[in-house]
């Protein structure tokens, strides 16, 4: 009911997860990252594909999880195209 419905992609080590969901006028993204004793959750809305792609490519986690980020980017772009 309240959790954004969409595609969730989690890293193999379970430390990072992205949820991408269609939203009114764009795409909603949640990024969860576990760092030792902390958990960071980011919630943001993208109104266009260009800003979403730019965000994916600016994510520092791309270095550690290149395939995950590529998949997130691909899934997000598919949502914009749908």
């Amino acid at each position, binding site marked *: *009911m309240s*959790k954004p419905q969409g595609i969730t992609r989690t890293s193999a080590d379970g430390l990072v997860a992205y949820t991408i969901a269609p*939203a009114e006028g764009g795409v909603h993204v949640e990024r969860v990252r576990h760092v030792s004793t902390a958990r*960071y959750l*980011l*919630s943001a809305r993208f109104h266009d594909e260009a800003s979403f792609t730019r965000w994916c490519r600016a994510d520092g986690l791309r270095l550690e999880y290149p395939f995950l980020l590529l998949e997130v980017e691909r899934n997000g772009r598919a949502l914009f195209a749908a």
Partner: protein
Amino acid sequence: MHYLQPRSLADAASSTEYLASAARAIDEMRSCGDRGEAAQLLGDAAARLGAEVALMMSVMQETESQLAHHLVLACDPTWCFEYERVCQAHADRWLEYALSHTEPIRASELSTDGAPDVLSELAARFGFCSTVIVPIPACRRASPRGMLCLGSSRQGYFEGDGFMAFRVVARAVAMELHEWWISRLGRELIQNASLGEADLTLLGFEYNGYGTKEISRRLGLRSAQIDFRFSRISKKLGVPGRAAAARLAAAYGLL
């Protein structure tokens, strides 16, 4: 929804519609069940207050060893990467202020003790040239705290007239937004862990310091049943024991 940026904060705050518009933002928020709408709701609320960009951060002690930071952005989302980078190297003065105060403050009023204001310089690149930090204090023991930051790309926007009305309304909106966010997370926790009313009652007893014996007396159940139930709840929540389970439920405002 698009809102016209007012000429000045005084213009926005002196409008007869100002308070009513903020109240409508709260109304819309309350009727919205989807946590995925958070960024949109935040952006709408900020615009109604006369701000252009906003971020809301919530900090909650989920377990004894785990602290959760939730960041909702109604601005360029690449801000979060830069923010993470800067706050790893420098203290987050905005959050530090918010966690130890209750009154809204302009970022320009925060002392840097002579150090370069790296955070404000960075924030300005993302539309927070003029910023107000609105602390969100915990409303109950162990409940989350946080801050709402409202910004404008115009230097000195929050320095002029209208600030007093703005801070009163911003405070109310910050509390409402935060409560909305936490309540959605709480519902999600209940749903994901399949917790029932009886489970929450038990966690409430634990949170208030009742032992197994007293709980079993009050509920008319055997001690072994109480212990078994606690063990099942802890397992469902993925925490090591009943104290941790109660703390987590309290952090999400369920108790």
